[in-house]
């Protein structure tokens, strides 16, 4: 089963609004990563946050990590129509899963212009 679980499954917002997606997991992790996927093809890496980090920023993206709650959130501020995509979290947990990323089922974000 997928260990990274995103919610909501789908999110529809107006351009300019903020979008928040959450990811929960069940084991101790080395890092957690967020990826974006357009049109069901290749994924693009957005941010990697290590287990000893609590927050990272990249442009309009803000990722938080709470290892005590085993959860992470991805915030996209001032959303644009071009942000419409599926967003996946992925965890690396070497002790549990070895050398592979375990992906969640994703959140489908639709930004309406």
């Amino acid at each position: 089963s997928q260990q990274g679980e995103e919610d909501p499954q789908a999110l529809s917002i107006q351009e300019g609004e903020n979008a928040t997606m959450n990811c929960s997991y069940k084991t101790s992790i080395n890092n957690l990563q967020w990826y974006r996927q357009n049109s069901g093809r290749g994924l693009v890496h957005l941010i990697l946050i290590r287990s000893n980090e609590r927050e990272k920023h990249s442009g309009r993206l803000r990722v938080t990590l709470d290892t005590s709650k085993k959860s992470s959130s991805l915030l996209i501020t001032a959303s644009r129509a071009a942000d419409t995509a599926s967003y996946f979290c992925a965890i690396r947990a070497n002790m549990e899963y070895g050398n592979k990323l375990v992906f969640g089922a994703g959140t489908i974000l639709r930004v309406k212009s």
Partner: protein
Amino acid sequence: GAGVSQSPSNKVTEKGKDVELRCDPISGHTALYWYRQSLGQGLEFLIYFQGNSAPDKSGLPSDRFSAERTGGSVSTLTIQRTQQEDSAVYLCASSWAASGGGGDTQYFGPGTRLTVL
């Protein structure tokens, strides 16, 4: 610079036929991954190669699936006697390392959409 490339981009085959999917990783990347993504689903790990180490095949769904990585570069995923449930997008990714550190970022190819009739 060149990213990860995959071929073919689309493959339609008949049930029972064998297919080969190819992945060209980014030059210098030691780690290579294959994933499968069914419609509207997340990514399902299939197999992982790291340098000269034995591959992690723990995600291969059956013995009809196999993969090779020749010379530490190009990889081929082979599906024998394809079934309709094999229909999915097959994604390849490569990275500098699989250490859990900063070199862990995976770079994905555009995928091969496989349709088994």
